């Protein structure tokens, strides 16, 4: 006689739900306990060393100078002001670096796919050389081996009579904004907004219409009108050598130039590979199909290849922008006053408040990273919607 099948309830400690719950409680306790323990240690250590805690230092007088600043700053400004100066310098360096790296990266990426053998090899050599050498080494190279040994301002290297390169840095013409400049900007902005509105309208009302002449007229029309009324509200102040140094013009310090060149050329090598992969990801059939529909090559590139390639290119491209921004912190190594150099360097040394200062610095980079990641996700969702 077969025994009746009975279901044995497993003992309570083997139930999956309970185990999951227990495991998570343990992990949470370990993490919180660990953090509490570290903070307890930190508080005790700070108290023993007589270091203040909290953000009381933020409004205190900094007492040190910064040689590159986008906003008014001197030694009597506060630590908070110094933080702002560093942050703006980081953003300036990153923004310019991103622009140049993108331009150079796209050119080299396309050259990597050129039908010309020699150009293709040049692009490959550039990419493989730059990618496999540390960025810090390249920054040092540009700064200590190229820019610092340059001649004195007296024998500066002249570039087209407009800019001068010497061991004090690169002096370029300074744009002078005259009163009407604000109006010009406003007119351009108005044109841009008008364009975006018109585009939506035309797309719905007149889908067959050739849109770009109207758009162009609307974009540049108001600005041209303002120009006619005010004359060009922009002048240039040319640098001029006087006795010991240059007067006038805009001086870019050697540190800034070295960082900009190194960051742009380094990131460009990575961007070039991304661009190449993006273009190669579009199947050959797409191009052939476009040709057989009678599209000319330029239109094929613009309407068929690029939109599909961009979908592959943009996510890793933003990643590179993010990397460039984070890499700009290497400025600290050659004393360009970026966020890390000013805040996590000088301010930290003066106040000794390591926890607050490093915490704020990391929070800034984290915020930038998360913001760009969020924007990326948004873009991905938009692109995904277009897909059919």
């Amino acid at each position, binding site marked *: 006689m077969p025994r009746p099948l009975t279901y044995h309830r497993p003992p309570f400690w083997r139930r999956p739900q309970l185990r999951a719950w227990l495991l998570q409680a343990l992990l949470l306790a370990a993490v919180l306990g660990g953090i509490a323990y570290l903070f307890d240690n930190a508080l005790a250590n700070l108290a023993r060393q007589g270091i203040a805690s909290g953000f009381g230092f933020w409004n205190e007088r900094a007492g040190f100078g910064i040689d590159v600043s986008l906003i008014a700053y001197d030694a009597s400004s506060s630590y908070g002001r110094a933080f702002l100066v560093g942050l703006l310098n980081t953003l300036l360096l990153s923004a310019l670096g991103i622009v140049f790296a993108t331009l150079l990266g796209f050119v080299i990426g396309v050259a990597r796919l050129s039908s010309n053998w020699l150009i293709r090899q040049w692009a490959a050599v550039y990419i493989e050389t730059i990618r496999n*050498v540390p960025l810090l*080494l390249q920054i040092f190279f540009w700064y200590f081996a190229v820019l610092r040994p340059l001649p004195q301002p007296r024998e500066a290297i002249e570039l087209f009579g407009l800019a001068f390169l010497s061991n004090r840095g690169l002096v370029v013409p300074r744009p002078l904004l005259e009163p009407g400049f604000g109006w010009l900007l406003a007119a351009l902005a108005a044109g841009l907004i008008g364009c975006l509105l018109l585009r939506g309208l035309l797309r719905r009302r007149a889908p067959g219409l050739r849109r770009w002449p109207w758009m162009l007229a609307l974009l540049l029309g108001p600005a041209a009108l303002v120009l006619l009324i005010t004359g060009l509200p922009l002048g240039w102040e040319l640098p001029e050598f006087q006795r010991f140094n240059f007067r006038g013009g805009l001086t870019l310090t050697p540190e800034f130039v070295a960082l900009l060149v190194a960051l742009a050329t380094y990131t460009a090598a990575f961007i070039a590979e991304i661009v190449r992969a993006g273009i190669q990801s579009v199947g050959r059939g797409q191009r052939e199909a476009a040709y057989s529909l009678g599209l000319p090559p330029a239109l094929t590139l613009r309407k068929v290849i690029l939109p599909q390639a961009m979908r592959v290119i943009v996510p890793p491209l933003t990643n590179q922008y993010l990397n460039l921004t984070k890499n700009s*912190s290497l400025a600290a190594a050659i004393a360009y006053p970026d966020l890390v150099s000013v805040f996590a360097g000088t301010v930290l040394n003066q106040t000794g408040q390591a926890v607050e200062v490093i915490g704020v610095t990391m929070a800034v980079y984290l915020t930038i990273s998360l913001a760009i990641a969020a924007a990326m996700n948004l873009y991905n969702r938009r692109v995904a919607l277009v897909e059919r």
Partner: protein
Amino acid sequence: MAMPRQSTPLAWLRANLFSSPLNTLLTLLGLWLLWLVVPPLLQWAWLAADFVGTSRADCRSGGACWVFVREHLPQFLYGFYPAGERWRVNLGIGLLLVLALPLLVPRLRQFRRGWVLALLAYPFVAGWLFYGGLGLPVVPTARWGGLFLTLVIAGSGMAAALPLGILLALGRRSELPVVRAVCTVFIELWRGVPLITVLFMASVMLPLFMPAGVSLDKLLRALIGVAMFAGAYMAEVIRGGLQGVPAGQVEAARALGLSYWQQMRLVVLPQALTMVIPGIVNVFIALFKDTSLVLIIGLFDLLGIVQAAVTSPDWLGFTREGYLFAAAVFWVICYGMSRISRRLERRLDTTADRQQEMA
């Protein structure tokens, strides 16, 4: 890019260099660049360079002064490691190369179990060899430097990052919300900040977190920072591999009655890890290049010691030679690793067909 097969060199030239006016122009541009770069470089680095001598007085010909590199070579390789003890470094690095052989020579793979054990024991043996104790004279980490220190930081960073990354990646894909949240926050925290702030944190903040009386070695602190940083990047690479393992594999493993860790160890991870070998190598290459940042917190890795040499009063001004040497070393190692990864990838059959299947 597919050109019909050309039979003569002339035809090849016409197809690849002079197929159109624009193409001809590009070729001329390329040749001009070549003429601009190669002859001066050759002249400086070889024809007009000084190779023999002992001091800067021997460098008079105006070209590169390779005497500088030759004189400093032991320092560049070993830092301030005592000359009489350098065999320990050589032995330790040599052991690692022997251990890496099974990766390159397929026939040696039958000794897999012994190999894994040796690999696990290696860090302890190497640590003993490098640091000393137990019969060997102690060499404090402050004297470590040069390429040796670079290899130590990159190697131990990688050795720590791989298991850490696997755990974090599994945690981020866990079904338990708390585990998932903790791992996600940890990963994003480290990935969102530059390595230099991590190193600053390791050098100035970490001592504050230690209980009174406990102080960590400066190198050890840097290693902890590097390991956390690399672990977070590794986790994201491995997560990509985990996502590539078809769900049916886990379901089948569960149906066989395997526990969670058995499922991961026997079924999921072997597939996931082989799939992301290129990504893992990329993390390693990035880590290897990033080790140069430790000079900012006062450790003398290869770049740090070159920098110290070019700014020393006796040899002021030989920056180009110094940097070129360091760049060449970094380049050879990084490029070599990327080539090895490409070979491994091909041999482990992780490429085209499977990835296309997933796409």
